[in-house]
């Protein structure tokens, strides 16, 4: 069988994860990596990998089966337009864009050109959350009453990043909005958001918050809540809890190690993993396999432009709620 040839745009932190994962896959080739800051030195990758500083190389590249876009989000829209002239199989990191009109434009383009456009909501592919989803669908806890997500970063990103990020709700909470929609099969109907700058006054000076609580109603009556922080000194705190008519499902943190220590001082054990790349390592591999499966023609579900649109709308509503201190209908 012919090798699947992939191109990757944007060799930053997340681009490196995807590139490394692709290089380890069988039947898949990392044919091209594009990044303006990249040394044109194939040694970084595979002997078969071409590199380029300029996205224009795509128009001349034949036989590319899929393109993965991992550049900063302000470039996504233009790069999707360019990439779509080469192949209909596209994978774009979140957030697709911060402006709902731009996303709507991509949605139209996607329909018109019949694009197979995946969005990088990687957490959907996390094995723990997949098991959670399966148990929900199997009716293990009956009808859902409440869903709560705790999502705290170990430390805040740079102030420069925060300024470009679109703010906590669009940068961080967006994953949690998507997870709630994914797990419940419902849409967010109303959002009440409360947030503050508590961790670092520089974040506040940049116009953002670093600590938030979001309280939501979903379209089918479920009560959902999210707890976010930019800084949990003890690690990357990622938990989900769901209460239903027959019981509860909980996903706890993955720990750095499994050793419990007991001494005259008491007991101690490992902290949560510290880094999102470690916590969600499997999910990045699995989302890429899922993308490749669709290139091969398999019919599987994937996070789409519609999901990007719905989560951005939720983020914007949260911003508005924070500003007005009242619940906002979507």
């Amino acid at each position: 069988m012919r090798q699947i040839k992939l191109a990757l745009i944007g060799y930053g932190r997340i681009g490196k994860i995807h590139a490394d994962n692709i290089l380890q896959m069988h039947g898949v080739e990392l044919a091209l990596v594009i990044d303006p800051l990249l040394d044109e030195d194939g040694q970084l990758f595979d002997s078969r990998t071409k590199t380029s500083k300029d996205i224009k190389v795509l128009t001349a590249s034949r036989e590319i089966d899929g393109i993965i876009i991992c550049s900063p989000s302000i470039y996504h829209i233009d790069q999707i337009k360019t990439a779509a002239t080469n192949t209909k199989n596209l994978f774009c990191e979140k957030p697709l864009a911060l402006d709902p009109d731009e996303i709507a434009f991509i949605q139209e383009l996607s329909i018109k050109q019949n694009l197979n456009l995946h969005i990088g909501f990687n957490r959907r592919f996390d094995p723990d959350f997949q098991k959670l989803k399966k148990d929900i669908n199997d009716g293990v806890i009956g009808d859902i009453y409440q869903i709560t997500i705790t999502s705290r970063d170990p430390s805040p990103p740079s102030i420069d990043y925060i300024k470009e990020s679109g703010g906590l709700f669009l940068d961080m909470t967006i994953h949690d909005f998507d997870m709630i929609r994914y797990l419940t099969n419902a849409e967010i109907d109303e959002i009440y958001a409360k947030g503050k700058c508590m961790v670092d006054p520089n974040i506040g000076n940049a116009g953002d918050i670093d600590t938030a609580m979001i309280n939501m109603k979903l379209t089918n009556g479920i009560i959902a809540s999210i707890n976010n922080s930019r800084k949990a000194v003890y690690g990357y705190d990622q938990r989900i809890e769901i209460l239903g008519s027959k019981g509860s499902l909980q996903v706890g943190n993955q720990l750095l190690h499994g050793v419990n220590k007991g001494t005259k001082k008491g007991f101690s054990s490992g902290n949560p993993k510290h880094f999102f790349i470690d916590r969600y390592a499997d999910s990045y591999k699995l989302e890429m396999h899922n993308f490749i499966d669709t290139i091969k023609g398999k019919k599987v579900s994937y996070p789409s432009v519609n999901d990007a649109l719905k989560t951005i709308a939720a983020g914007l509503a949260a911003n508005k709620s924070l500003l007005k201190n009242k619940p906002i209908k979507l």
Partner: protein
Amino acid sequence: MINKDFQVGLIGAGRIGKMHAENIANNFPGVKLKSVADPSIDKEWFESLDIENCYTNPDKIINDDKIHAVLITSPTPTHINFIRKCAINKKHIFCEKPIALTVNEIKKVIDIVENENVFLQVGLNRRFDNHFQEMRKKIHDGSIGDIYTIHITNYDSFIPKFKFLHSSGGLLLDMSIHDFDMVQYLTGSNIKEIFVNGNVFIEPKLKEMGDIDTATITLELDNGIMCSIQNCRQTHYGYDQRIEIFGSDGLLLVENDHENLCFLITNNDTSRAKLKNSFIERYEKSFIAELNHFFECIQSDKKPIVGGSDILSAVQVAVAGQESLKQNLPQKVIR
């Protein structure tokens, strides 16, 4: 510690009244539970304990000169009248929360109790839970630095009978009130604003009453801390009682107690017992500790640490919460 001739009475021998009566009999040899009043007393239960009198009329307790203190554990709507009568008859009072369902009634009760110079302790038993006390100590020791957020989960095992729900004052006054008090107790700061997101999933009849059986509540305190409270009337898996406090230097958690410590690990999975079934099992020690505090306060003539003003404060939050639920808007707590 306690005089042998220290005699108390109990009004209302329902589930929690019986528990207090048994706690007195089993834990306080210096205290004599002399009389119990209840409109329909469980004879078999009464005879199993060494109690002198069993009345249907509570006035017989209130007018008994030999009785120093009265425990009021009757249904909430009856509390205020009994408290007033007890105070006028110079009895110290232990009353189950929420002592009354409106702010004005509670204020009146506080005035009466103060004028008559008797003690009123309110059954906010969770303050006497050793786990939460340790949590509070660690907060005050600065173990987690500045507090950013607090998260309380408070779920019942099984929804109570509709008759109880009907007279309970509703989810916010009956259940969440413990959580409002806990937040204020742990932080030493009052709740400033409340937003209640509630729904009816379990008992459809609650809808007609404007009540809910499930809620997620967002709070803000005077000192800026944000809190979330999760309430539900029914889990099936036990009485779910957790607190999480997130701060600049770490996290504090109080986890659940299970029915037993046994794990079964087979080729299929690892399993263990449900959580403890109800407040009676989970907070067993706290109910004894709160009575111990009440009796000690009376003996040493010191005011109990949890009284009228604490329940008033929590009820004010619940009342603002009811308004928030009605209007679907955050509400400032009126003090």
